[in-house]
């Protein structure tokens, strides 16, 4: 007789083991590129929202505008700019990948390769940008 048969209407003594909500779906390059694309897209959106508001401030009061912009000239903001540029660069390159995947059957078949090309281009761009930018930020 099995220990827990159809008749035993009791939860097992052993408490539920790990991953209560089910496992995370193990999608591959396509899924993760989409996750990153959405995260970077939403992040860029909120940046632009704030950026349009602070720029609009110059019409209200140039002094207030200068004060706000002045607070951006800190190393922490400098690092934030690296993150922002990183997000935009990924979103832009991957956006081009999505356009290719949508319209070109070859790209639909080779989307994984294209994803790694996007990652490669992103790394190259960031290697070119980050040192120069940080030298600027920290030499002020």
């Amino acid at each position, binding site marked *: 007789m*099995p*220990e*827990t*048969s*159809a008749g035993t*209407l*009791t*939860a*097992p003594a*052993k408490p*539920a*083991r*790990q*991953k*209560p909500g*089910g*496992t*995370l*779906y*193990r*999608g*591959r*390059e*396509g*899924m993760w*590129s*989409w996750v990153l694309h959405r995260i970077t897209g939403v992040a860029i959106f909120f940046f632009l929202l704030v950026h349009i508001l602070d720029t609009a401030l110059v019409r209200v009061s140039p002094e207030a505008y200068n004060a706000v912009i002045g607070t951006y000239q800190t190393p922490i903001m400098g690092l934030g700019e690296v993150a922002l540029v990183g997000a935009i660069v990924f979103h832009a390159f991957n956006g081009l990948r*999505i356009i290719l*995947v*949508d*319209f070109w*059957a070859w790209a*639909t*078949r080779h*989307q994984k390769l294209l994803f790694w090309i996007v990652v490669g281009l992103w790394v190259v761009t960031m290697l070119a940008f980050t040192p120069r930018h940080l030298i600027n930020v920290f030499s002020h």
Partner: protein
Amino acid sequence: MSTTTLEQPPAAEAAIQSFTVTFLIRRFDPDVDTEPRWQDFDVEMYATDRVLDALHKIKWEQDGSLTFRRSCAHGICGSDAMRINGRNRLACKTLIKDLDISKPIYVEAIKGLPLEKDLIVDMEPFFASYREVQPFLIAGSAPVAGKERVQSVAERAIFDDTTKCILCAACTSSCPVFWTDGQYFGPAAIVNAHRFIFDSRDEGSQTRLDILNDKEGVWRCRTTFNCTEACPRGIEVTKAIAEVKQAIMRGKP
């Protein structure tokens, strides 16, 4: 004088090695549980066994209450799509030797459809979307001289891939868009619409393109390729969806 055939015993007589494999199965009994729970089972398996064999062994030898669907057991009926180690697979086509048995093997129901019991989900929303795309030949005219409707090999090849679908729902339930928006038609419905949209004998393509141009139609697709990875029939699902998107933009198949 010696016949070489009899000198060695047949190799098959050597014992085939078996392994103890741990399965963690996400169970849910609506009569008892308020939430699903994980339960582990140790099963003696051969490398050539399938996950479906493990479920059978558990049901027949350890716990008869384990509930799952299967029918053909050979990858044709589409009954046993489930999430195995976090990916949608048919239990009857997933061999033990292709899994890492040094760790437990996670088995749970497919995502995005209402969970009914253990590995069984309510497939009705899935089939409702399937029916909505009118997956049958629509032709106003009778075939010429009572014969079959002639189609060239090239015309047939255009939609060959999408004729292979077995309606297992592995694709639709692997789609992140479908998980959060159950109204989305989902890859399987689009695949089966594709099968008729690009069929030269069919006359209902425009209707189907209009149906899929809906807010919950093909434009929901975010090209994550989870469906293509999940399809046990090897259908290039995302590519089929892209072809339907382009047909809608062109205004004709």
